[in-house]
């Protein structure tokens, strides 16, 4: 029973994904079974479409910028929250997470008004700022679960052994919490990459891939959209995968370094 349920669950979760990937390689525009043959024609059409390629680039730029900004701001906030105690911790913890419950429409309009007030014209910069705003709560929530358990006596131990506050952060705190922060950064990247509503309100002439796909769909449902979606998916998977690989390689490397250093000595 339980086993069957788990399979059903997984199928519902990943079935649609699989379908899109499958049809993006379909040689015919029909999106029905049985499949008639495989081809890369939709991918070619995707890369021939200037608007789509440009918007994919924009998406990557925006997601990278907003994820970086989120990581810097979010890490500092999460580390500060981990040090707060009592009602202050609860209050600030709530305030930082509450924006998640706000409707995207509301945030979008609010930002639109704000940017207009300050005379900031809409561009990829405003999109990246807006994305930072909405991914910050998620970043904080994802990293706090781990940072709240960070043993502050580790920092005291570092100080005790002669580290300045900055050294103890750089040599002890940061290396220990880095995997958590990287995970939260990837989450922010993913959130920014496929954000639609707020992007509509804050983008100018240049737009992101989800918006480009959406406006294409208003005209006709073409299988190019499948290819575009798969491209978007690949980007996110690639980012997650490369960070994972990077972390793994670094561990291997530093371990090897140390071993060889010992052997020499």
């Amino acid at each position, binding site marked *: 029973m339980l086993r069957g349920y788990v399979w059903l669950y997984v199928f519902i979760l990943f079935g649609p994904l699989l379908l899109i990937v499958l049809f993006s390689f379909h040689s015919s525009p029909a999106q029905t079974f049985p499949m008639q043959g495989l081809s890369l024609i939709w991918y070619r059409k995707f890369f021939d479409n200037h608007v789509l390629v440009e918007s994919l680039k924009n998406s990557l730029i925006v997601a990278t910028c907003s994820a970086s900004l989120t990581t810097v701001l979010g890490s500092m906030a999460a580390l500060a929250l981990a040090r707060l105690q009592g009602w202050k911790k609860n209050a600030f913890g709530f305030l930082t997470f509450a924006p998640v419950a706000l409707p995207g429409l509301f945030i979008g309009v609010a930002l639109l008004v704000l940017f207009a007030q300050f005379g900031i014209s809409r561009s990829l910069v405003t999109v990246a700022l807006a994305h930072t705003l909405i991914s910050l709560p998620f970043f904080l929530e994802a990293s706090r679960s781990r940072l709240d358990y960070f*043993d502050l*006596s*580790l920092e*005291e*131990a*570092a*100080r*005790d*052994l*002669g*580290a*300045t506050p900055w*050294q103890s952060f750089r*040599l*002890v705190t940061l*290396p*220990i919490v880095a995997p958590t922060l990287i995970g939260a950064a990837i989450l922010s990247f993913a959130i920014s990459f496929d954000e639609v509503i707020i992007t509509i309100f804050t983008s100018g002439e240049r737009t992101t891939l989800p918006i480009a796909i959406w406006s294409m769909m208003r005209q006709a449902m073409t299988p190019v959209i499948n290819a575009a979606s798969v491209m978007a998916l690949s980007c996110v998977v690639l980012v997650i995968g490369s960070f994972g690989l990077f972390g793994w390689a670094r561990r291997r490397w530093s371990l090897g370094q*140390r*071993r060889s250093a*010992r052997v020499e*000595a």
Partner: protein
Amino acid sequence: MSDAIVKLDRITKSFGPVKALHEINLDVRNGEILTLLGPSGCGKTTLMRIVAGFEQPTTGAITINGTDVSRVPPERRPVNMVFQRYALFPHLDVFDNIAFGLRLRKLPSKEIQESVLKILELVQMEDLANRWINQLSGGQSQRVALARALVNRPAVLLLDEPLAALDLKIRQHMLTELKRIHVETGTTFIYVTHDQDEAMMLSDRIVLMDHGRIEQIGTPEEMYAAPQSLFAAQFLGDTNILAAKVTVISGADARCNIGIGDVDVPSKGLKAGEEINLSVRPELITLSEANGADGSLTGVVKDHAFIGNRIIYWVAFPNGLVLRCQEARGIAGITYPAGTAIAVSWPVQASVVLKL
């Protein structure tokens, strides 16, 4: 050996409205093991954290090696600490944990290598230099924490309840190890614990603390044999506390009434009619079969417990008083079964007078 390496001069510490320490004056002698002992919340950990530099005293001054360090941050104090739950760096292996302090001092790597290996030998962890921290047992973590602190050759080693997280067997073994390491390094130890057995076994001197004040300072034997307060008498070891009233002073002895009869106690500083407490250790009470002799304290064995090397008898008296008495186990084993009428007595010097 007896010059002070750490001097605490009228240290007080308040956390908001809460006074954690009241006017602490304390000299730590060079090379000794000094234990800060007391129940949780007595201020012992705060006092140690002030020595380490993690807390600033509200008033007062702290001197280490003749230098006032009251406003010096922890990284520039010549002390190192063994933390209660070790606080080993989980992202570094054993070697790098121990080398952490030396690397911060930018010592040449060859020297670091030598120092770390030497200290690993001292704590008998030579084979585990490449282990990750999460691969260590509690006892091994403890050794690494010790090595990481000692490798920096601190003037004073601070140990914050270092054995609290270990099981009994390993704890006893680590105690003897600590003594050995103390002898081999000659470093001054300040040791914080709430465990009186640890304090008795390890210390050259014990500082007994309660409610942010020092109750008494002395060698383990002084603390046990001559407590100066009710708190000290009860905190260290088991004892019987008897409410007493001085009736007659005759030379070196004072006769006191303790409700179940009269006993003689040392008269020093006592006046007739004064009300006092007496502390009588169970092992100093002599038991004998009741023979109805005049003036003997006679009760009935209520219960007994066989501890192995000793036997404890609870002797009840008609007025409800119960005395805890202890005999070394002899060949005969339990000599007084429950219900036996029994006479108790103890020498004059066994009564420790505690003024109210």
